């Protein structure tokens, strides 16, 4: 049985057009693993129907360590300060590492 590790799951909701910008920033923090899901909804930016390329949202999931999370949250804060519509929240998770008996690298 693999030893369960404690990690953070960061969830970022943003416009599809900003996906590339957010992911490039994550890469600068050494994060290469993430999952992207297309989404639709509504908010202060209006209706995001997901029907056009210009009104689609994405949800980006990233699993990482707490130390790395802090740096990423600072980046998201800077994006938000510049006016980018980015929502970020995180939660504690318990995860089975990919390799048994060895601490898995951060995302």
């Amino acid at each position, binding site marked *: 049985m693999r030893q369960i590790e404690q990690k953070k799951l960061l969830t970022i909701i943003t416009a599809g057009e900003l996906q590339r910008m957010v992911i490039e920033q994550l890469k600068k923090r050494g994060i290469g693993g993430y999952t992207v899901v297309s989404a639709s909804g509504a908010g202060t930016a209006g209706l995001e129907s997901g*029907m056009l390329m210009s009104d689609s949202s994405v949800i980006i999931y990233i699993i990482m360590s707490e130390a790395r999370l802090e740096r990423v949250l600072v980046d998201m804060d800077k994006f938000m300060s*510049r006016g980018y519509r980015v929502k970020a929240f995180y939660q504690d998770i318990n995860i089975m590492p990919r390799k048994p008996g060895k601490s898995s690298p951060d995302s």
Partner: protein
Amino acid sequence: MLSSALSNLLDPAVLFFVLGTGVGLLRSNLEIPPAIAKFLTLYLLVALGLKGGSALAEGGLPADGIYAIIAAIFMAALVPAVSFYILSRRINPFDSAAVAATYGSISAVTFITTQQFLADRAVEFGGYMTVAMVLMETPAILMAVVLATAVRAKEAMQQQAAETGTAPEEDDDFAPLSIRDVLQEALTDGAQLLLIGSLVIGYLAGPEGTAEMLPFTYDIFKGMLAFFLLEMGLLVGKQMSEGRAKIDKALFAFAFVSPPVNAAIAILLAFWIGLGVGDAVLLAVLSASASYIVVPAVARYAIPEARPGIYFTMALGLTFPFNIIVGIPLYYAMVQMLWGM
């Protein structure tokens, strides 16, 4: 004029748009799966590019075409400049820049619908108008980004002056976007690349080469356009019924007044340089339409301070239906009247 407007309104594609809007307003559960909706946009861009490129290969680029392209570039610079000048006196400068970019650029679907309108009436137009459309897509967003950058720099200086002695924090990762960044974002936009690529393929293959694709680009085109307009109607209806975006009166008026004014300027320009009826109507529609695909997508990245709920809703929820239902027959009637004098 009235008969032209009525026959346009009874066109099945336009009727599907009206149906979609009604269904969207009723908050029905009818929906087109997002993947299919996106495919329809891509299909229309491929068909438009192939047709334009093939027509360009067949007819070449006559003097009329060069004049039309120059006029189109002139309108692509004039409309955002004047729009920003008017809007920035009333609303937030970032919103003004984004709205100016949206109205300075073009709506490919309005252009396609107009081509179909002209084809139904056997009015000829040049393949070079598709080139004009492509060239009108980007100047407005570049101009808007330059304006937004100037506003941002001014605000930063004012803030720095207010916080005397504190220098702004520098961070290379979050430096303001350069024109190169924005140009790269605009020119690598998927919709833009597909349209330009299809135009080049249509030109290289010529009428003979694209003949085999006629079932794809011509035979099913009207049906696909109708289906796409149903989708757009649903989107417009949902935007209206959600009522989330707060469009103030000045912007509301701008969304309906600026298209016919821009169209009138384009028609006078077309008359002055001696374009044909079809080319003049297309130039008017290009000048009167607002982008709701490429520019809103780029503006989210390049002008993040602007509110998408304003510029996207104005372009899609107000100006697009106006042009489809009223604008196209109105501009056609204006051209017929002026050319018939």
